C-alpha cells in the first residue's frame, strides 16, 4: 500500500519555525540550555533546529547527541538485538536546562531511558521534551511533550515515518499502514 503523507514539506517547515520560536521564548539566548538529540533520528531534527535557531541569530547553542540503547528496558525482550549508536556529549548538563529532541513520540519508553541516561552526565536543572510528531493514545508511560509539532492518531501497528532528505530542510511525515499477514 502506498504510504499516506501526513505532513507536507511546507507544513513541516512552518512547524519547525514555530518550534524554534517557542524555544526562544522559553530559553532566551540559550546560555544555560542544552539541546539533546536522541540517536538515531532525533539527531536529524536537532540539526534542523540548530540551523533555524542560528538564522534567528542565536549564535552559541550547546548541544549533544544521546544514545540510550544501554538504558532501554527491552534488552533481551525483543527478537532483534539492540543496536547502539554513538553518543556525543561534550557539555556538562549539571545545572543546565535540557531539551530532549526526538522525531516521533510513541510509547514514551525511549524518553524514559533518556531520563536515566542523562543522569550519568550530571543533574540537569530541568528537562523538557520537543517532538515533531506525537502519536496520541499509544503511550505506555506518563510522558508528554512540552513542545509539539503535530499530533497524529494512528492505530497500533501503523508506522509513522519522518523522512529527511539529505542536505536540505526537506522533510515529509508518512503513515505506513499495518499490513495484515
Amino acid at each position, binding site marked *: 500500500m502506498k504510504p499516506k503523507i501526513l505532513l507536507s514539506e511546507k507544513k513541516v517547515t512552518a512547524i519547525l519555525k514555530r518550534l524554534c520560536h517557542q524555544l526562544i521564548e522559553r530559553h532566551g539566548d540559550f546560555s544555560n540550555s542544552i539541546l539533546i538529540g536522541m540517536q538515531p533520528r532525533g539527531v536529524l531534527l536537532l540539526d534542523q533546529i540548530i540551523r533555524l535557531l542560528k538564522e534567528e541569530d542565536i549564535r552559541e547553542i550547546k548541544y549533544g547527541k544521546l544514545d540510550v540503547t544501554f538504558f*532501554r528496558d527491552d*534488552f*533481551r*525482550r525483543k527478537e532483534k538485538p*539492540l543496536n*547502539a549508536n*554513538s553518543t556525543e556529549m561534550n557539555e556538562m548538563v549539571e545545572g543546565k536546562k535540557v531539551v530532549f529532541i526526538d522525531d516521533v513520540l510513541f510509547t514514551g519508553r525511549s524518553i524514559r531511558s533518556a531520563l536515566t541516561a542523562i*543522569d*550519568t*552526565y550530571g543533574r540537569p536543572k530541568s528537562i523538557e521534551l520537543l517532538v515533531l510528531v506525537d502519536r496520541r493514545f499509544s503511550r505506555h508511560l506518563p510522558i508528554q511533550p512540552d513542545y509539539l509539532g503535530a499530533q497524529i492518531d494512528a492505530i497500533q501497528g501503523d508506522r509513522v515515518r519522518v523522512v529527511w532528505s539529505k542536505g536540505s530542510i526537506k522533510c515529509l511525515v508518512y503513515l505506513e499502514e499495518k499490513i495484515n499477514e
Partner: protein
Amino acid sequence: MNKLTVPHLLGIKYLQIEDLKLIFKTASQFKEIINRPIKKVPSLRDITIANLFFENSTRTKLSFELAEKRLSADVINMSVGQSSISKGETLTDTVKNILAMKVDMIVIRHPHPGAAHFLSNQVNNCSIINAGDGTHEHPSQALLDAYSLIEKLGNLKGKKIAILGDILHSRVALSNIYALKMLGANVKLCAPKSLIPKNIDSLGVTISDDLMYVLNWCDAVNVLRVQNERMDINYFPSNREYNQNFGINKQTLEKLRKKIVILHPGPINRGVEISSEVADSDNTIILDQVENGVAIRMAIIFLLGSQIKISA
C-alpha cells in the same frame, strides 16, 4: 550485523571477523560510557554472573568484575584458594552447584586447556566466557590488544606486529595470533627456539630469534611475560641471559630506525623481558590496554548477555 555468531566466548578461533568488528564497535560505545561522571548502565540488571578463577589473576579478574558491575549485573566470585576445590570437588560438580543458584553467565579461568569448552557442553541457557584456559586461549586479552592496536595504528591490514617472549606457555600469544591474522596483520614471533611451539608456523606466522631484526621490522610489539610458574624444566640458562638476548631496554629502542608501539598484557617482570624505563615510557600503551580491557569486556558481556533468554 548486531549479534555474535557464537553463544559463548571460548576462543578467538571460533569467532568470525564480523564478531570482532561488532565487539570493537560496541566497546567504543562503552569506552565513552566509562568516561562519563557516572560510569554505569542498567542493561544487565537482571543477569547474574559468576567469576570462577581456578588460577591467580589480578587484571583480568578486576577488569571482568568491573565490567560486570558497570553493566549492573549481579556478581559472585570464587577463587580456588577459598573454595571446595581444595576438598576434591570436580569442575562439573562445582559448576552444577553454581548453576543451580540460577547464574546466567560464567567467566572461567582454569589451568587446564579446554576447561571452558568442556563447561560449555554441560550448560544450558548460560554463556561461558573463557578468561584463560591453561596455555590455550585468552580471547578477551587478544580482543583488547587488537582494539588498542587499532586505536594506535588504525586498520591493522598489512601492519607488522611482533609477539616477543614466552610463546610456548602463552595463551595470550595464541589468541593474539588468531585475532591479528583475522584482521589482516602480518605476525612475526620472536623468542628463544626452546620457547617456540612446534608447527606454530602453520598458523601463518613467521619466526625469528633476532630481536633487533624483528624490532626494526615491526610497527608494534607485544611483549609477553616469561611464565616461570609453567616451566618444569629450564628453557633458557638464566633470566639474565634471557634479558640480554630478548629483553627490551632504552638502548635497544634508541638503536631502532623508528618509534614502535609496545604492548604488554601484564604482569610485567621488570628487568627481565622489559626494563622499567621502557615500561614507563611513552612507547608503551600498557595502561591503555587496561582501560580498553574494561570496555572490551563490557562489550563481550553485553553481546553475550543479549542472547540469554529470559527465564519465566
